[in-house]
């Protein structure tokens, strides 16, 4: 890994601080009604760490024979396996999180189904 460039560091910090302010503004406006979907939505979104996991899982050729033999597993293989597990958990969060959020949001309706029409 190359030595960190101060400009990159400042840029990262700026993004962080701005995202924090923006996050505060956006999330304060979410009504308590939608707090559960909010939690599951932000969770799904932070499943974006999937992209970091993917890069690590795909970084090195894996020597399957060495792995199967249980012999000397080279260092990159450990990273690959960790990346692989991280891909699984992050992908679970992305798919499960968005799926459940949508299932919940579908249920929030302004008008009731049928009831009013029938009684009229």
């Amino acid at each position: 890994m190359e030595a960190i460039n101060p400009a990159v560091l400042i840029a990262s910090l700026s993004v962080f601080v701005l995202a924090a302010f923006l996050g505060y503004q956006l999330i304060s406006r979410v009504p308590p009604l939608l707090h559960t979907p909010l939690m599951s939505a932000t969770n799904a979104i932070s499943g974006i760490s999937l992209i970091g996991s993917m890069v690590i899982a795909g970084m090195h050729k894996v020597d399957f024979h060495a792995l199967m033999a249980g012999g000397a597993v080279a260092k990159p293989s450990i990273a690959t396996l960790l990346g692989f597990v991280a891909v699984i958990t992050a992908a679970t969060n992305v798919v499960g999180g968005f799926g459940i959020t949508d299932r919940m949001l579908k249920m929030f309706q302004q008008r009731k189904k049928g009831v009013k029409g029938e009684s009229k």
Partner: protein
Amino acid sequence: METGVNYLLEFTYLVASILFILGIKGLSHPETARRGMFLAEAGMAAAIIGTLFHRGIITYEWIAAGLIIGSIVGALMAIWVPMTAMPQRTALSHAFGAFAAALVGIAEYTLHGGLSMPGFTRGALGFEVMLGALTTTGSLIAAGKLQGVIRGTPVQFKGQQVLNLLLFAGMVGCFVYSVVNPAASLYFYTMVGLGFLFGIMLVIPIGSADMPVVMSLLNSYAGLAAAATGFVLGNNVLIIAGTLDGFSGLILSILMCKAMNRSITNVLFGGFGAIIHAAGLDAVGEMREISLDDAAVRLAYASKVVFVPGYGLATAQAQHAVRELANALEERGVTVKYGIHPVAGRMPGHMNVLLAEANVPYGELYEMEQINPEFPSTDVAVVVGANDVVNPDARDNPDSPIAGMPILEVDKAKSVIVLKRGQGRGFSGLENPLFFKPVTSMLYGDAKSSLSQLAQEVKNV
């Protein structure tokens, strides 16, 4: 050529960030929420597809296998998890997210070692792994408690706080040392171990009733761990998404603490929910029982009824039965509203989701501040499986352990019907003077069947 792909990837990440922000903006109203989420999903898809062309990736077997397994598990969860189990599911997803962040950090460390990293990156990496590790086990314990696999009562023992303090100091000490001394990989891995252990120790002393705060805090940690990953990898979309998640959790935990009039330290270290006998015992008197028939008549001839749901609604799976009764009442011309306390249930917004599942239009769901002024003009307040959030001691008795907690003032209604399984206490172990007030009548039995029977009776009145 290679740099061309890289710029394209960076651009894709920028688009994804914008879509995520628009997605959360959509959540400010139920009408726009689904559309917002579609945007966020599109952003996620773009980021994932773009990453497949990342120049660092040379082999796809593990990625493909991981994506397939994860998608299947995620899809199964999305389809099969019942709404009543939403708190457990969410706690589990905090664990998964944090675990992914911790693993990425550890993998980076095994690849590069501490020596080749600049100090700042080592710090961000250590932070990511430490936070990721403790959030993983903490969330697993929270999920276990919510699911009932682990006892929900606080687990406390002598010297616990000292032990926790030592664990925390050890963990942070190893973190600092591994940042200062790049070659100290042993300390790095010790920190990982202590992090996993500390997560367990942090959550076991906390009772189930405090889970809304714990869930929000863990949410915040998981997000911040993801943001730290962004710092390590120099990736802005990770920083943005992680920060949004982290701040969402933080804001929610502050809101939850306010709704209980307690500080975060008190929630984390107070061991609330351990049996408290002293304060409430003097609130004795006569509890009046009401029969189904009488309750049905009273409801049927009311002009305004407010339902106040609590965690008992979820355990009894009674949300559809509430709706059934509300429908029967509305057909008679009774005005029906629902009063929702911010910490009712086991996670923020828990009750809203359950009632929405039962087709209650969200226009009938009222927040505490909106519904409290309406209780004096309410004929019948129906308390379904709620206890502490309607305990008038919080308002009237300064010695009560929950003194100062804002409550739903159902005792100001003209009459109150409390649906309760038995005569036991709530999760906090506190006696509730509401049950002894002259306006209150108790209807014992399983909430779900009581409500269904009431609905039938009301139709026959």
